[in-house]
């Protein structure tokens, strides 16, 4: 009969068997769940699960631990390769583990010893999808897309790596267009663990120095490995883009690559060159529409100008005729007035002369000497008063008679035919 084992003996036996079966660390892949980091010691605990079908539970799960010392070493090694080391829930990872069994608690656990930074396929995609879902629910991804992109985007902010092929391609495409683009660059790291901070800092720099003067901002870098591009799958970048006052054009990697800024930006470009082409095309469309409008305007205005020219020519002709005849017409009026004046004055003088002549004639006619010559006499009394009636003369009265060539003094001896008027 076999002796009963204590729990500890059983656990020690299991531990020994496990160590025999898995003498060296091994690579295992699975999806991280239940990630928690114990503050203070710096140890990280999580579960690794086989990927589950949609809506189902994972078929298998195992507890994992990453001790602080291992974490520092792995982070350093990964960073030296220019890769990202970041454990995130729901990400599929490939990690190096050793099997551990605690004989006192009977707890089975995998101890993480290494990290495959090049394994990023499904895990990066899951991480990205998770971020997209979360940020979309918050409305972060739609924010920048609501900003209007200028019809004439000539003032461009550029966030990229200084001296990179992306910068050259982008600027070259703009320059070749011949349009007067003005590029204001804010340099940023385009790979490595500081990418997100550097990009956000570049955006903030443009905000501080350029404010409202930009029409759009382009975030771009050339192609790279999935891991390289995964540095951009950072919610900090997405949240910063959502707060920017200008439309952002995201051109990261190649056509097949998709990163979080592509979702958060106003417009997604396939490459740096494509980002520039989007701007050039927009300016070209504006240019075309202005040219078309100008042609329409000219075609509408030309006939009007011709008509106005004709009117002006006619008016000039009329004015010429009017002005040419003006002095003579005025002179004619003046001449008429002068003639009228002459006639009036001459007439007046003639009239006066006639009246004078008439007066003269009448005066002449009434001259007493002329009457006396005709045989008429003037009888006066002793005082020289003319006696115009026989009734004024009495018999025996002395009268003086004036006749042609002399006067008589006579005594009235009698009178006849006395009668009243």
């Amino acid at each position, binding site marked *: 009969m076999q002796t009963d084992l204590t729990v500890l003996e059983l656990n020690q036996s299991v531990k020994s068997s496990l160590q025999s079966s898995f003498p060296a660390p091994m690579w295992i892949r699975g999806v991280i769940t239940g990630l928690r980091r114990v503050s203070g010691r710096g140890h990280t605990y999580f579960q690794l699960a086989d990927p589950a079908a949609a809506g189902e539970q994972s078929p298998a799960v195992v507890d994992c631990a990453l001790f602080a010392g291992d974490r520092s070493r792995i982070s350093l090694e990964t960073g030296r390769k220019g890769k990202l080391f970041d454990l995130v829930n729901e990400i599929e990872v490939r990690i190096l583990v050793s099997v551990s069994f605690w004989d006192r608690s009977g707890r089975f656990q995998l101890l993480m010893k290494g990290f495959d930074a090049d394994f990023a396929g499904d895990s990066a995609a899951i991480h990205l999808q998770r971020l997209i879902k979360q940020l979309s629910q918050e409305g972060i991804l739609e924010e920048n897309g609501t900003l209007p992109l200028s019809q004439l985007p000539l003032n461009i902010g550029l966030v990229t790596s200084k001296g990179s092929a992306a910068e050259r391609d982008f600027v070259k495409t703009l320059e070749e267009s011949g349009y007067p683009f003005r590029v204001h660059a804010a340099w940023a790291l385009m790979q490595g663990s500081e990418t997100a901070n550097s990009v956000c800092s570049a955006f903030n720099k443009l905000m501080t120095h350029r404010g409202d003067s930009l029409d759009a901002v382009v975030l771009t870098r050339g192609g790279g490995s999935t891991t390289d591009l995964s540095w951009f799958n950072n919610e900090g970048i997405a949240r910063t883009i959502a707060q920017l006052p200008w439309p952002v054009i995201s051109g990261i990697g190649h056509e097949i690559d998709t990163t979080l800024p592509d979702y958060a930006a106003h417009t997604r470009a396939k490459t740096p060159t494509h980002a520039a082409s989007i701007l050039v095309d927009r300016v070209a469309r504006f240019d075309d529409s202005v040219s078309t409008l100008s042609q329409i305007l000219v075609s509408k205005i030309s006939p009007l100008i011709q008509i106005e020219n004709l009117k002006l020519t006619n008016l*000039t002709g009329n*004015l*010429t005729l009017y*002005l*040419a005849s*003006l*002095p003579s017409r*005025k*002179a004619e*009026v*003046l001449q008429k*007035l*002068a003639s*009228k*004046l002459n006639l*009036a*004055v001459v*007439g*007046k*003088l003639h*009239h*006066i002369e006639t009246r004078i002549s008439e007066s003269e004639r009448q005066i002449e006619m009434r001259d007493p000497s002329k009457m006396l010559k005709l045989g008429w006499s003037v009888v006066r009394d002793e005082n020289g008063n003319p006696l115009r009636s026989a009734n004024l003369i009495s018999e025996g009265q002395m009268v003086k008679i004036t006749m042609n060539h002399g006067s008589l003094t006579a005594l009235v001896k009698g009178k006849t035919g006395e009668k009243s008027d």
Partner: protein
Amino acid sequence: MTENMTYSQMLAELQGIVDAVSRDDCPVDDLEEKVQRAGLLIKTLRARLKKTEKSVSQMLTEIDS
């Protein structure tokens, strides 16, 4: 005194003198003075016309060219 008068003002005054002289009640005493004034006005108006004619002629030459 015609220096500060416009052509129209002078013409109106001349017209007034002609009208006054044409009336029967125009005193003969005023006639000489009025005719002298009318003569001055006519002389000045003719000078103005001459000057205007010259300016217009020059202007028409410029328009034609």
